[in-house]
């Protein structure tokens, strides 16, 4: 079968211009603009079959947007070749080309044409587009009166109805409301079964995991992982936590040797299933005697919201002696909504309360929780749902 997308040794270098340094008018004209080069993608090979859905994850600046631009044909590779078969439609920041003064209907015509639809196609599909976007009452209203959700819905509906052979999705489904996002994925699955290849770039691991069988992890313009989405997320979390391991806050008297998560089988796990019992292990070496050490554990969401923070000074641990290596652990059952999190740990010395002294802080550790895609929000309260009463 011929691939829908094929990249061979693709490298993309951007020239960044910096200000001219010449002084005076003549100097300005004579001084050549100095440039520095930025390698956005470095020797990327990729083959995607028709009907596949590929997730692309990576930190900011990893090259995700450049990859999407190359797939959309908006830019050309500096070396290597990019081959895309069929019509490409980007769902990149939905509503590009929408003009606020024009009505929804007019914008559908313009946007549909930009995406390569003929007038007859747009006319024929207008009803479906409007129905999917749930904008029946507002389709003749200028879009400047639309909410951001309405904007996204209309843009999505047009892009999907353009029936592209390759659909490029960039971080857009985060804007719509939850039920609309579900319908979008449903719709994307439909067109995928009909043969459309879909490439999704997102920071939302839940979305990627729910939709893509295969994912690519980019780091500094290179593909560091290409395989199952499950493994890709683990690889990404691994990267992110290594990155966060900036020099740990200097403590005093204790050196952190490692901080990681172990699952029930005792393995390191950066990918945790909902309901698993895990242990956060902090291994330290004492440089001097510590009489009353106690632990602190903190967990934040990927976005930085504190989920849990607990300093158990009420449970002092056994004293440390100089030169001793000790592994502290904090066990817990993971009841967290699907998503990415980070954990931090520290060891303090309980001198006489309320005075305590920080001994050491472990580098922040990223991990990913899956298994309960239905739960959203700050905490999983694990409600049990059922019927209480039934009146016949």
């Amino acid at each position: 079968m011929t691939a829908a997308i094929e990249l061979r040794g693709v490298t993309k270098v951007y020239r960044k211009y910096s200000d001219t340094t010449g002084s005076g008018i003549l100097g300005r004209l004579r001084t050549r603009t100095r440039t520095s080069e930025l390698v956005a993608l470095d020797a990327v090979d990729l083959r995607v079959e028709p009907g596949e859905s590929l997730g692309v994850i990576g930190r900011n600046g990893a090259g995700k947007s450049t990859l999407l631009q190359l797939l959309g044909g908006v830019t050309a590779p500096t070396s290597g070749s990019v081959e895309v078969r069929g019509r490409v439609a980007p769902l990149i920041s939905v509503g590009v080309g929408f003009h606020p003064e024009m009505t929804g209907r007019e914008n559908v015509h313009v946007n549909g044409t930009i995406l390569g639809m003929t007038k007859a196609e747009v006319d024929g599909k207008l009803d479906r587009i409007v129905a999917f976007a749930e904008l029946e009452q507002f389709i003749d209203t200028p879009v400047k009166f639309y909410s951001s959700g309405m904007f996204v819905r209309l843009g999505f509906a047009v892009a999907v109805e353009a029936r592209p052979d390759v659909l490029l999705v960039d971080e857009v489904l985060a804007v719509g409301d939850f039920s609309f996002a579900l319908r979008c994925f449903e719709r994307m699955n439909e067109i995928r079964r009909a043969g459309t290849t879909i490439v999704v770039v997102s920071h939302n691991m839940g979305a990627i995991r729910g939709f893509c069988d295969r994912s690519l992890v980019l780091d500094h313009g290179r593909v560091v992982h290409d395989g199952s989405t499950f493994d890709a997320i683990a690889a990404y979390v691994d990267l992110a936590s290594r990155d966060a391991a900036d020099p740990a806050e200097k403590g005093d008297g204790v050196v952190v040797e490692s901080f990681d998560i172990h699952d029930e089988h005792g393995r390191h796990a950066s990918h945790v299933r909902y309901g698993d019992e895990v242990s956060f292990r902090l291994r330290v070496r004492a440089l001097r005697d510590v009489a009353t050490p106690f632990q602190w554990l903190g967990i934040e969401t990927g976005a930085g919201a504190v989920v849990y923070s607990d300093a158990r000074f009420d449970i002092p641990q056994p004293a440390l002696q100089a030169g001793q290596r000790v592994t502290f652990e904090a066990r817990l059952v993971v009841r967290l909504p699907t998503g990415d999190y980070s954990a931090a740990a520290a060891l303090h010395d309980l001198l006489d309360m309320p005075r305590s002294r920080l001994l050491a802080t472990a580098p922040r550790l990223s991990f990913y929780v899956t298994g309960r895609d239905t739960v959203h929000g700050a905490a999983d309260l694990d409600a049990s749902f059922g019927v209480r009463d039934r009146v016949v």
Partner: protein
Amino acid sequence: MTAPAPGFCLTGPSTPVAGLLREVWASRRLVGVLARKDFLVRYRRTRLGLIWAVAVPLVQAAVLAVVFSSVLPQVTTSSGSGRLGSYAVFVLSGMVPWAFVSGALPAASTSIADSANLAQRIYFPRLVLPLVAVVTACYPLLATLAVFLPVALVLGPGVQPELLWVLPGSALAVLLVLGLSLLLSAAQVYLRDLRFVVSAGLTVLFYLTPVIYPLQRAPQVVHDLIRVLPVSGPVELFHRSVGAADPLMWRSVLASVVWITVFGAAGLVLHSRRDRVLADLL
């Protein structure tokens, strides 16, 4: 209508000129739709709509006619009979193509840079953007023509076949803006100063081109220089339609054709070399 060959294989920034032109042809409906959009949007919230497209050059022409015929009567009276009415028609005939060029050229020259939002996200030949700007500017051109013709009939020489000169005149003006902007729109991405060069250049050209005075009133030594200015061709063709052209106007027309060819060819080459990477610099 045949669909464009779906898909692409890119190994570098350049596209062969023939391939680029095929893609532009395949995008012709996009040009129409975008031009119609730009045109509608420009006048949508105004009460008088397209009337402004006519009113602005009309007011300019009227002011110029009055000012110049009272301040510099010696410059203006040699056109036709010397009456204010015929001078007004002369000025108006010059102002129609001039208003088109001076309105369309700045917009077309910056069309690619101004469409960064769209161009960075979806591919179509970048050449489409100056085309859209030129087509958009044709709406007000048609409107000004619709006003100019009756005025020429009433104040000017009356019904005569010469009026038909406005057709090649308009075509030449459209081609001129198209040719110049093919090069300028792509070059402007690299050299943002061009925006101001165009703006300053138009100001100078307005007085050098025989828009508001007959060429014969300029000093003899500069006649041939004036004749080879880019906008002289269309302007002289319009003057011809009211019977007030420079006898050697064909030199001007030829010069305009040369400008169009040189800028158009250079523009095509630049577009074909850089089409796929112009968006990188936006």
